[in-house]
Structures are given as C-alpha cells and as structure tokens.
C-alpha cells in the first residue's frame, strides 16, 4: 500500500478509497498513544454511518477511545480478525489491522483530510 493514498483525520483514523469503498483504520501513532488494545466494538455490516460520528469503541488496558467514521456511507465489511485478536491492530496498523470498509456516499469527503506528510506534522513527528 502506498502511503500517498492514505488520508488522515485529526482523531487519528486513516482512510483510503478503493473502488468507491473507503477502507479505514487507526494510525500507528494512535496505537502507540492508546497502549495495549484489548477489545474493539465495531458497527455491523449494513449499518449506515455518518462522517465524524462515533461508531465504535477501542478499549485499551488503561483507556477507552471512540472510533469516528471518516466518511458517510454504509458498512460493507468488518475486519473480524481484529475483533478476535485486537493485538493485530498495533502489529500492522495500516494493513492487516484495518477496521472497516464503508461504501462511501461521497468520496470527496477525503479532500479536506490530512495527507501522510501533513498528518506527520500534525502529530509532531
């Protein structure tokens, strides 16, 4: 995967478009900040989600974080692997640790997001 295709939210979700479907997850920085992730609660296939809405939760040993939808649309796939093994998220945040695939209503929602370089600046790396 080419990092140039990734867009980031200020809530540390990443997203890229693949044939009208937004693939999303959380950044390595988010994983680092959360610490050991032990449980994720995700929406179900078929659920309608709105951009910026809290659509799930990420539970780490110490903290809990909301998962925000980066786009509006319909959930078409949920990564069951991270539900069974949340450790996968930190091991491979940008590939195997993806969270959801969302059939986006409007792909232009990504236009206002940070690109990889801007995101790195945003987190001060």
């Amino acid at each position, binding site marked *: 995967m080419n990092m140039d295709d990734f867009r980031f939210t200020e809530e540390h979700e990443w997203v890229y478009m693949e044939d009208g479907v937004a693939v999303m997850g959380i950044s390595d920085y988010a994983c680092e900040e959360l*610490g*050991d992730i*032990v449980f994720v*609660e995700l929406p179900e296939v078929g659920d309608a989600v709105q951009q910026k809405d809290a659509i799930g*939760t990420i539970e780490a040993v110490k903290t*809990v974080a909301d998962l925000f939808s980066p786009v509006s649309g319909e959930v078409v796939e949920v990564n069951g692997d991270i539900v069974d093994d949340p450790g996968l998220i930190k091991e491979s945040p940008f590939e195997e640790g993806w969270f959801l695939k969302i059939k986006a209503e409007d792909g232009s929602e990504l236009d206002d997001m940070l690109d990889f370089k801007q995101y790195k600046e945003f987190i001060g790396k």
Partner: protein
Amino acid sequence: MKKTALYKKHVDSGGKMVDFAGFMMPVSYTGIVNEHETVREKVGLFDVSHMGEIEITGDRALEFADYAVTNSVEALDNGRICYTVCCRNDGGILDDLLAYRFSSDRILLVANAANYQKIYRHLSGIAWDDIEVTDRSAGIGQIAVQGPLSLDLLLRSDLCTPVRDQLEELDYYHFFTLLNDGEEVIISRTGYTGEKGYEVYMPEGQIIRAWEDFMEKGKEMEALPAGLGARDTLRFEAGYCLYGHEIDEETSPLEARLSWVVKLDKEDFVGKEALVEQKKNKPERKLIGLEMTDKGIPRQGFDIYTGGEKVGRITSGTFSPTLRKPLAMALIKRSVSRKIKDFEIDVRGKMKNAKRIKLPFYPGRVKD
C-alpha cells in the same frame, strides 16, 4: 510538577510520562501488558519515589502510631511491617499505609503520593507534645523490585553485596537497614504486585546508581522497568485496594475487605468509636469481584444493576493481562444477597452482563 531523581532515566528508556498526583511518572515503557507479564514471570523495576515517608519519633512513638492507625503496630516485633489504614473520626479512610516498626521510639509510615501531605498535616495535628512527626518524603527515593526473580536480582546488586545473607533470610513484611556511603537504606520484603518482591528506600542521591546497577544486573534475567500502568493492573489482579478507587474518605475499611487491618480491641484509636458502631450495625457496602460475561471493559465509576435496581458502582476495572479477561472490583449495597451472582453494568449507556467472582482474581505468590 515534581520529578523524581530518576525522571531522566525514565525518559531515556522510552517511558511515557504522565502527571500522577503532581509527579511526572512513567505510565509505561514497553507496554503495560509486557511489563505486567515481566513482573509475573521474571522481574520488573518500579520507581516509586513519589510515595511519601513520614517518620514518627519520641519515647511514645509506638503508642502514638497505634492511636493514629487502625492496625496494631505494637503487635509487631522491631524490623516488621504492617499494612494499615489511617481513618478520620467517622471511620472514613484518609490513606492506606505501611507502618515500619524500627523500635518503640521510631515508626516509619509510607503513604500514597496523593495523600502524604494530608497525612502529614493530620498526624501533626493530632500528635502529642512529646511526639515528633517528620516528613522525610523529599529526601527519600524508592525502587520496587518485583517478580519471582527479584531476590536473584538483588543478590547480584552492588547495594546488597554486603547483606546477602540477611536478604536471603528476609521474610514477607520484614525489613532491615544497611548503611550505604554512610546513609541509611531500608530493604523490605513488600510490594504491590502480588508477586514476591522487595522495596528499597534510599537517599535520593543514591538512587540513580542503584537503578542503573539493578538494570545492568537484571539484564540476563530479562528484567524491565515497569510503569504505573502495570503497577495498577498487577495490584488489581491481586485484589489490593487503590486509594481513590476502592477506598477514600467516604469509604470505611470494613466495607473494603480491610476488616483484618482494623483492631477494634485496641484501647483507643482515631475512628474506633465509629468503626465499632459500624461493625455492630453492619457497613452499608461491600467490595466484590466481577467478571464480564458480555463483551466490554468495565471502568471505574460505571453503575451496576441487579434485578433492575442500581446497587453500586465499579471501583476499578480493566482487562486482566494474566487472566485474559475483563474484570472489575465494585462496591455494592451490603443488602444485595450473596446468592445473587448476576449483575448488569452500564457501559457507556449499554447494559452488559457480568457475574460475581471471588476476590482476589489472582492468588498471589508473595511468600514464595
């Protein structure tokens, strides 16, 4: 913000620093679960220099200590320690403490970072004329060496070379002192992890050298520095109370499974009258263990229900790294029957099922 003498060491070893009770402390270095497992299986090093040390001296120091705390310091031999709480007149807990009996005229109390100034003021306020209460916290650093290999590590350390025999003989809740560069160092067989372990108190000026040496000697046993995150999950599994969670000024020791540290047959102590009364009429709440049967992590403050009635709240909850499941401690109404096993927890607006299980979650191996 206060920093311990080891602050720079923590930052250099990748410690994620957070504000804890006014101190910049490492919450973790390599990850809470990794550090937790290291302590359960090998040995971990904790900087606990933020803890407060308050010394009580004077001919009647022992008598005063027994007036100030609920456990019996008099029942200890010199060189022994007890866990205790210090209560208000109404039985509410001001702090939980370790009381070190050096002699009948010198008792050392070790208090939580968040509470030691309050405890110092409280003790100074109730002290008799011939009692000296001294806050030694600023000058004393503390390293907790915890885990099944803790003794092996300390035996190899420079600090303990002259006292190896004494160290090997040291039983649980006993301590001894040694002079290092002419200054007093205390080594006690105590801890807050449920594992065999030691706590080493020394002058702040000596602590960097000791930490470096412990880390160096611990290398071959894969020792790791461990932060406050692992300290919390370890104590939680072992069923130890944490101030601000299971216990606080509104909670009595009789509610928090701490009746064993309240010696109601002592002549007099602060809070005795209220606690005697409470024991007679039964305290309002009790501390229980819960295991989630639905998915979700119970956290402090979440409400608990049974039969549609709100009966209490979670005091600590997390994913237990050792038992690999979400667990919680909770204070619930005493009137809830022992036979009731099923509860519901309000996890951010969603009701999730949980069942009552025995405390502690992890039996502990402190006497190994």
